[in-house]
């Protein structure tokens, strides 16, 4: 079967890529230097709380890595260590080959968007772009104007008067305005409407196209799926898995919502290979599939008049169920 062969190839590529991200032991010294972003066995404790544990992570130039995990998993803590805002309890973080705390000048080549973007409420976007431009060694007015126009931002109103989405746009412009070599973005699409989200994902792809290394965190899978080539998944401070997006999608469970013309018999999906759970409610069935979707789809087509199929959930927790189990086996 050609399909299966293809799948096996992808999986093996995924395995190789994953080695570069796997926590501890696997990374060799020479690799770390090449990477634009590198965390090496980094741990952060806040008193008794272990926020990040022995995490290794790297992003090469031209690469987009999605940093995925539920809220409170340690994504922001990791990012704030990368930027030098927090001191690691052990391990080290480097951006462009150096510790940003020791070499602040390197930040000229970095764009950062915090998870909770806030600025002086009386300042306008325009004020901020000009000020940060000055600090970074010059304002690229043409680039700022282009970004403002693409994101449909009114940069002449004070921050305090803007909606959540417009505030986030200011954050995006200031992160991209100097065409940095490294972009570190914490939950960048928060508050953006779908059209602007698409524009933002284009910005990411363009930046990667000219060689920027990009790490962006998220707690939802679809946007990572669309923009990233690799994903690192963190949960309770630990790296659960790191792989290519393709590999991840092959390995993880997914849920489908099926709508039928007539009431669904309760046992429709019983014993169907790959279906690990099925909830039936009159004319609707929600099934969780682990592995190929083919058999489940065949069963659905044989059901009482299949009307529509939609993805029921992009919930990370669902994803983790599968990942955790496969992670334990390895």
């Amino acid at each position: 079967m050609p399909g299966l062969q293809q799948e096996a190839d992808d999986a093996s590529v995924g395995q190789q890529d994953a080695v570069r991200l796997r926590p501890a032991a696997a990374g060799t010294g020479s690799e770390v230097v090449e990477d634009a972003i590198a965390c090496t066995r980094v741990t952060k404790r806040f008193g008794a709380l272990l926020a990040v544990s022995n995490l290794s992570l790297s992003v090469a130039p031209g690469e987009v890595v999605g940093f995925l995990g539920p809220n409170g998993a340690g994504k922001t803590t990791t990012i704030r260590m990368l930027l030098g805002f927090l001191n690691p309890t052990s391990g080290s973080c480097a951006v462009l080959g150096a510790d940003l705390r020791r070499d602040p000048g390197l930040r000229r080549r970095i764009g950062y968007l915090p998870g909770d973007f806030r600025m002086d409420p009386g300042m306008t976007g325009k004020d901020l772009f000009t000020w940060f431009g000055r600090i970074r060694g010059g304002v690229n007015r043409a680039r700022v104007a282009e970004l403002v126009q693409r994101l449909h931002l009114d940069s002449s109103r004070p921050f305090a008067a803007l909606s959540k989405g417009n505030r986030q746009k200011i954050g995006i412009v200031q992160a991209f305005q100097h065409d940095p070599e490294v972009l570190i973005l914490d939950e960048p699409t928060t508050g953006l409407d779908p059209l602007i989200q698409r524009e933002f994902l284009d910005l990411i792809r363009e930046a990667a196209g000219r060689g920027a290394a990009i790490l962006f965190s998220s707690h939802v899978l679809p946007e990572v799926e669309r923009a990233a080539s690799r994903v690192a998944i963190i949960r309770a401070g630990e790296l659960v898995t790191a792989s290519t997006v393709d590999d991840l999608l092959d390995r993880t469970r997914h849920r489908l919502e099926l709508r039928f013309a007539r009431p669904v018999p309760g046992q429709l999906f019983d014993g169907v290979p790959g279906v690990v759970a099925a909830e039936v409610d009159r004319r609707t069935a929600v099934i969780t599939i682990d592995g190929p979707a083919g058999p489940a789809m065949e069963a659905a087509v044989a059901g009482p008049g299949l009307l529509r199929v939609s993805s029921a959930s992009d919930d990370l927790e669902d994803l983790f169920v599968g990942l955790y189990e496969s992670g334990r086996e390895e």
Partner: protein
Amino acid sequence: MLAVLSQVVWRRRLTLLWWSLGLLGLDALLAVAYPTVRDNGELDRTFAGLPPAVQASLGLDAANRLTSPVGYLNSQYFANLLPIVLLVFAIGLAAWSISGDEASGSLELLLANPVSRIRVALERAGALVVLLGILTTVAALGLMLLAPFTGLTRGLGGDRILAAAMATGLLALVFASVAYAVGAATGIRSLATTTSASLAVALFVIEGLAEQVRALRPIREASPWHWLLHSDPLRHGLLWEAWLLPILVSVVLVGAATGAFARRDLR
């Protein structure tokens, strides 16, 4: 050059304008009211009957009667009103400089730029000095311009008014440095404000009580209030204790706190 300092000053320009207008209004009120006080000998007798501690805390004594320009300005302005106004302005700004801005989340955004923490901290301290300096100068200039019209300059040169205002500004700078230092070292704004404000109040009370309570005198020697009130710049000009000590203490506080800020975790 000084992009962090100039941004603070520029962003605060309206605030500074309102505070300046307020102080100028106060200056005008003092000047206008003086002729009435000057001609009221009853006031002198009343105040002379007060306990020495109270008189001292008002900057009055046998040589400086309330009705004299020096006594009037000390008791109504330089020993209380002006320090309080400058303290409120300076402590608020100092607590914001690191800890307030850190709590609001915008300090982190600035520190993602190619500026070291030490540079940000020192430029913010510099902005505090600039803004406090402007406000102090405005207060002095207002009085120097208005005083001659109401006889407040009788036996009192403009240089003395300027000296008294500067000494008061330096007193505010010391307590602002405390707020700055606590905020920079801990990142907790409320702690910065309350530590500094309660220290200022406590030392002010001690300054008054020490006239009678001998045990408090050693503490008084280390108090910015004592450096200001005891040196009486309105009479003697700017003595070294009124400018050198505040500057030394402020430099040490800002230096130590900047070092701590450069090493710690941001909140």
